[in-house]
């Protein structure tokens, strides 16, 4: 019996059941909602969110109130950088990828240094960095007209490529495998869990806590930057603050995936399901015929109800 409850409480299982239920509900409300093409479109949107959430997941797993509020700014900046570098030409893609990764890694490095060397709480450090990034976006938009995506990049994100799936979904599967490998098969991964569950003990055991934490923030920046690049391919051209919509949803995807904000427990498989769940939910709300205000209210309440399923805090009497 206890074992059954334990299985039923598995966040991945909850998320998958909820996704299936939502798809069924969506298809009842609006026939064709769960058609193959529609699901593929949902998966592309989920992939963009899921890639951002991968970095967010790593930072949160590292514990000590780890969180990265600057991801939205990095996504926006990276989309603009990529657009300006490639400017609609396939030949510019390799350089654009390089520029994006460097941008993400650089801002992640700043975040990591602020959090480890100056010991500024991650929430505050990344929040301040978000302000800086938003300012930088204004500067760039004034100086240079925003560029366009190269055809090959747009095709990579939207056109079926292998087994009927577009490149971005394969990329996301790759990210999933990479995350699983890092977290469960490498020393680095074990150390992330170690510092996330007890930083002091990990430090005593000789784990280079600071370097790992800096690496986590850099990885978060890089994942956000890659998502920004793909987002450019998805939307064709970069525009202001496209990334803002990824900041808090990336955190919610992680929480829905069974990684508590306190860190040290959880993984990325659940987060992937969490990202899909969030995107399907948003899509259903666009499908049903209520206006923006009603949609927002339903979305807020649904998030709260869903959260009741996932790792609530322990009661004081427990």
């Amino acid at each position: 019996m206890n074992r059954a409850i334990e299985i039923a409480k598995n966040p991945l299982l909850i998320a998958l059941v909820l996704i299936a239920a939502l798809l069924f509900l969506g298809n009842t409300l609006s026939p064709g909602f769960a058609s193959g093409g529609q699901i593929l479109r949902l998966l592309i949107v989920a992939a963009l969110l899921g890639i951002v959430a991968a970095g967010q997941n790593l930072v949160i797993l590292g514990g000590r109130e780890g969180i990265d509020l600057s991801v939205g700014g990095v996504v926006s900046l990276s989309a603009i950088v990529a657009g300006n570098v490639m400017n609609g030409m396939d030949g510019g893609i390799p350089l654009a990828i390089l520029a994006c990764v460097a941008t993400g890694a650089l801002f992640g490095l700043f975040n990591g240094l602020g959090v480890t060397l100056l010991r500024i709480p991650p929430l505050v450090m990344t929040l301040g960095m978000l302000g800086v990034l938003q300012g930088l976006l204004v500067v760039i938009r004034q100086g240079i007209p925003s560029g366009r995506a190269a055809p090959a990049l747009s095709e990579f994100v939207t056109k079926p490529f292998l087994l009927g799936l577009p490149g971005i979904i394969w990329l996301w599967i790759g990210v999933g495998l990479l995350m699983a490998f890092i977290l469960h098969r490498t020393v680095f991964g074990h150390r992330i869990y170690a510092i996330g569950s007890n930083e002091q003990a990990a430090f005593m055991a000789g784990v280079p806590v600071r370097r790992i934490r800096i690496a986590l923030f850099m990885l978060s920046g890089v994942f956000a930057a890659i998502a920004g690049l793909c987002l450019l391919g998805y939307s064709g051209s970069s525009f202001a603050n496209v990334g803002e919509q990824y900041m808090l949803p990336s955190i919610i995807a992680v929480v829905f995936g069974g990684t508590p904000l306190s860190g040290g427990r959880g993984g990325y498989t659940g987060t992937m399901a969490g990202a899909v769940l969030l995107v399907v939910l948003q899509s259903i709300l666009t499908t049903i015929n209520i206006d923006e205000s009603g949609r927002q209210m339903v979305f807020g309440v649904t998030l709260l109800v869903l959260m009741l399923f996932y790792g609530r805090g322990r009661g004081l009497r427990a």
Partner: protein
Amino acid sequence: MTSVSTSTRQENQGFRTLLGRFPFLPALFILVVLLVLNGIFEPNSLSFRSLTGLVRTYMALMLLAVAQTYVVYAAEIDLSVGAIASLVNVTIIVLMQNWGGGGLSVLAALGVGVLVGLACGLVNGFVVAALRLQAIVATFATSIFFTGLALVILPVAGMPAPTVFWRTYGGTFFGIPFVFYAAVALAFLLYLFARTRLATQLLAVGDGQQAAFQSGLPVTTIRIGGYVLCGVFAALAAFCITGDTASGDPLVGAKMTLFSVAAVVLGGSALSGGFGTVAGSVIAALIIGLINSLVFFAGTPSHWQNFVQGLAILAALMVGVLVSRRGRA
């Protein structure tokens, strides 16, 4: 050698005691520096008139920072303060319009506004403390809900506030601008609150929930109380926003939420709870305002202003966190 080291240690000790008693000192120092810099770049900015303008514009952020502080006392966070302020803003605007815009209807609408803020605080407190959801995500979800509600009440920005309302907020009485009366009233209110049992209990809960619970404190009720206090102050902030902008906007507060968190930290309160002052948050809100005006007065090209402001706020946060840690380490 020994005597030298002893004396530095004593100095450190004195500095720490001072910081322990007045954790907002670093913020106050930054504030004074910014005032002086403002005066250098634009002597007019220190005129009574300019300072009044500054207080009038940033009164709302001060109140939101205060609101956020009470939740942070208990080691929580409220990402919905901006949405609550928006909701109250549109509620009072619509009510004032519907009730004719006279003095009495304004007062009645303000009363309802406070109740709306209180109700929002209750909702937040319930989901975070009673249902035990994680504060960051739960209050983000409620902020979406409150924004939806605000959009129901007033779908698009633009309905004007009654003249009597914004004339009062921007007006002068007995030669003193109204906002200064408001500031004095706020200071008195905060002074009284600092002496209440709830303030102490919130700090105790923030220091260690389990310990607070085991020593017999009604932890859940106290945490809900913190959110309710936060909601009420967010409503007061909405009054200032309404007075300053003289119109309703269902999204007006959204951008202020993260500034309120920044102000709390800059003011010397610990996000980990159990330690902080509202005075620090108020000063920090003014710092954010002064940074914005300084960047303007220093002649920064317009499209660089946001970037320089962002850098300056980040730098101020770093200095604030570093100095206040020295006081507590």
